[in-house]
């Protein structure tokens, strides 16, 4: 059933949430607006029903298995939300004095320390508000480091072709040139090409390990040696940290700077596309360049580190101090796991991925790297099925929705044709993995027996497949009431 737009409700009964006063603004008429605001006029019950109904049109972790590769859609414990929303935390003004924030600051200080331990880094700043901003901070620190040494010719960032799109986009945003390195047949980086391009213009390399192919880069020590010998630095994209938590440390691998997606590994909610948190960690030599503010402990008192104290800092990345409430949720999660729980995260994330990979392979699916151990995720290629039946990875993705499973990541990484990138996470039971394998097998059987029906999927969602071409060619981005008769935005 289609839920109307909130603007299509029109109860006049709505009251504002402060007592209507006779107060008039103490402002001249010439500065006031005279047009009608396009805001809803619905009753509270209508608003509550409308948004509750809309929520019911979503898939979510709380309602479905969500094996979205590289996104780490694990359970988001409810208690993390409850404790981040304690009234004193919600009511704290970001510019309030530290005397009224010792509880909050201590929590952030301890979070910084736990993240240092989990990654093998010397210092952490929590301010970046998402993974891409963490990447920005990392590359900006690498540039600042070279500049501080008068080494300003270094403007190239090396990125593997399997990398997430934010890596090259970040390098460009920081004014760097992107040098792409291919991946070998076995899934590891083409190290001969790396040797050929690393040199006096190399600012650094951005790597995800395990890579977006779901494989641990086995030559990592050699890569680090090549980049460091060339005078560059290594950036670790923490998108796949869930696979190695407690097993190995980016710091030991030779990385100089890292971002962590707290909304992946440390279970803060994805919220329908944010807010995230992309805390950054660095080794000793990049410490002076960390983005401010971060928390320091001086004589038993917690305070914010400022740019005056760290004049080489790349500076601020947010108006205040990042996504503070997200950080509280990550802290609660980490304290509840403790050391043993954190080590088990990777145990069971990797067990689930390998189990699911073996089950799908035994069910007849083609796994992209059958000779390799899966990390916390793996790739299935539907190339042969697509060639034989015309049913594509996208069709599988849509058909899975009808079975009550969110689709895996499709068509990423770009290297493997007709691919599904599948990440089950540690919080799924064997039963839900078995259910997913059964659904995949049924869709595959249907692809051979009745491909047209599969290509029609989904049939049980609030809408059928949407016309993306129409959406892009005639953008309708803002609702216009019938009366307004204006051109659509």
């Amino acid at each position: 059933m289609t839920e109307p737009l909130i603007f299509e409700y029109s109860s006049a009964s709505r009251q504002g949430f402060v007592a209507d006063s006779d107060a008039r603004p103490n402002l001249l008429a010439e500065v006031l607006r005279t047009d009608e605001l396009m805001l809803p006029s619905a009753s509270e019950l209508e608003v509550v029903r409308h948004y509750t109904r809309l929520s019911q049109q979503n898939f979510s972790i709380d309602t479905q298995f969500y094996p979205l590769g590289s996104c780490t859609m694990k359970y988001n414990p409810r208690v993390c939300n409850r404790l981040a929303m304690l009234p004193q935390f919600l009511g704290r003004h970001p510019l309030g004095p530290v005397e009224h924030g010792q509880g909050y600051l201590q929590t952030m200080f301890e979070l910084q320390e736990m993240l240092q331990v989990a990654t093998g880094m010397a210092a952490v700043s929590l301010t970046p508000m998402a993974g891409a901003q963490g990447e920005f901070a990392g590359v900006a620190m690498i540039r600042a480091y070279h500049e501080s040494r008068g080494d300003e010719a270094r403007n190239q960032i090396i990125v593997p072709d399997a990398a997430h799109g934010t890596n090259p986009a970040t390098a460009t945003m920081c004014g760097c040139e992107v040098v792409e390195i291919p991946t070998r047949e076995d899934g590891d980086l083409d190290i001969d090409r790396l040797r050929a391009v690393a040199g006096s213009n190399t600012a650094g390399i951005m790597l995800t390990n395990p890579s977006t192919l779901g494989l641990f880069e086995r030559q990592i020590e050699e890569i680090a040696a090549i980049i460091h010998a060339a005078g560059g630095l290594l950036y670790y994209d923490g998108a796949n940290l869930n696979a190695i938590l407690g097993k190995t440390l980016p710091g030991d691998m030779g990385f100089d700077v890292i971002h962590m997606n707290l909304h992946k590994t440390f279970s803060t909610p994805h919220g329908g596309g944010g807010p995230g948190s992309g805390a950054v960690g660095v080794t000793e030599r990049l410490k002076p360049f960390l983005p401010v503010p971060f928390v320091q402990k001086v004589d038993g008192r917690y305070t914010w580190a400022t740019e005056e104290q760290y004049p080489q800092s790349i500076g601020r990345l947010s108006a205040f101090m990042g996504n503070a409430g997200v950080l509280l949720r990550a802290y609660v999660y980490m304290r509840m796991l403790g050391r043993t729980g954190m080590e088990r995260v990777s145990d069971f994330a990797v067990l689930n991925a390998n189990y699911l990979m073996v089950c799908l392979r035994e069910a007849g699916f083609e796994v992209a790297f059958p000779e390799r151990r899966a990390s916390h995720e793996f790739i299935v290629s539907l190339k042969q099925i697509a060639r034989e039946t015309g049913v594509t990875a996208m069709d599988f993705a849509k058909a899975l929705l009808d079975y009550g499973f969110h689709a895996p990541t499709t068509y990423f990484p770009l290297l493997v044709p007709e691919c599904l990138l599948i990440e089950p996470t540690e919080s799924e039971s064997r039963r839900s993995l078995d259910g997913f394998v059964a659904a995949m097998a049924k869709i595959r059987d249907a692809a051979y027996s009745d491909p047209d029906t599969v290509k029609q999927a989904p049939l049980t969602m609030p809408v059928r497949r949407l016309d993306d071409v129409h959406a892009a060619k005639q953008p309708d981005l803002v609702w216009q009431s019938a009366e307004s008769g204006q051109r659509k935005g």
Partner: protein
Amino acid sequence: MPFVPHTESDISTMLSRVGVAALGELFDEIPAGLRIKGLEGIGPALSEAEITQLMQMRARHDGEPLCFIGAGAYDHYVPAAVWDIATRGEFYSAYTPYQAEASQGTLQVIYEFQTMLASLTGLEVSNASLYDGATAFAEACLMAVRANRKNRSRNILVPRTLSPAYREVARVMLKGQRIELVELPMRDGISDLKTLDNLSAGDFAAVAIQNPNFLGSLDHVDVLTDWAHSGGALVIGVANPMALALLKPPGQWGAAGADIACGEGQPMGIPMSSGGPYFGFLVCRQAVIRQMPGRIVGRTVDLEGKPGFTLTLQAREQHIRRSRATSNICTNQGLVATAATIYMSLLGAPGLRSVATSCNANTSALVEALIALPGVTRSFAAPFFHEAVLAFDRPVAGVLDALSSNGILGGYDLSADYPELGNALLVCATEMRSAADISAYADTAREILGAAA
């Protein structure tokens, strides 16, 4: 085991299916020299009851002081329904709506959000939100440089009265692309129009205007907008959405209106929560939509002709265009934007106007009460919305410390950001501050000022 559902029998079945004897073998591709023995230094697990007690203790320790600070984050009342609905699991634990058919809820919310922001700012199209107000301003500057093909300038004229934090974040984010912020001086708390005579608008890709500005004052938005346009510069309007319930929106500034509007969305139902998560908004004219960064939702039809929503114009974004994308941004502030949409729906236009009017009236009352004290005057005569600058006859820091120990956060000390203003304090009283709260502030301040004099 917290949040891992496997039984012993599951584990042994799964290990044997995979063909390994123990969990440790799953990590055999990690070089032996890189394996660690575990996370030494992380403490033991706390139970849910234990972590609850710990966090409650820390929260209580921070207390709930009476807040008269604004400076970019505001203490507004948030109706109960806002976060009750926004934190439903179906919103809270969903991902980015890439699978549109399974994400119509999130997508329709964002389409409604975009509509509300376009209306508030008086412009045509909005994106799905950015990280916060400061990064939205930086993205607006980047967008203006890309969009202004007339003069190819890489300079943005930015008033000194624009939020110092926004200017700093923009400097950091623009540095790598060699885009410079040029400062427009201030006079009497607003932009100094006389200095425009020595400048040429054609030397700038864009002129930024914040209204009300960081100091709370209303600026010469019409004059500045027309001046910018006369030389071919674009106009970036930085606005507080609460103020837009009353004030002429950026889209109506000057003869042609601003080209881009951005700002901090926090006043729309988002708690202050130590600075985040908030959301930035970015709205623009149709003509520059292809330079917009971030996610955008469009309404389209499904194969049966039924209306539905989807992410659109994705050819701008990093996952398609990689190093040539409009920005590296991937995440928006989905959940926070959801809460804001519910907030704006609950209040509607009359509710927002009523809150904004109360803020204006309360700050006026606060200013009156404080300038009645000896040694306190208003710094500027310019009209203000809900923040104003007061000059003291002594350093503000000491006064604020004394207020703070009485449970009152008296405002934001401007001496570091604006030393030229002397002992200056930026104060704010939202609709949450009662007449009794304002009297308490004035009475306490009177004692502090009297005692120290």
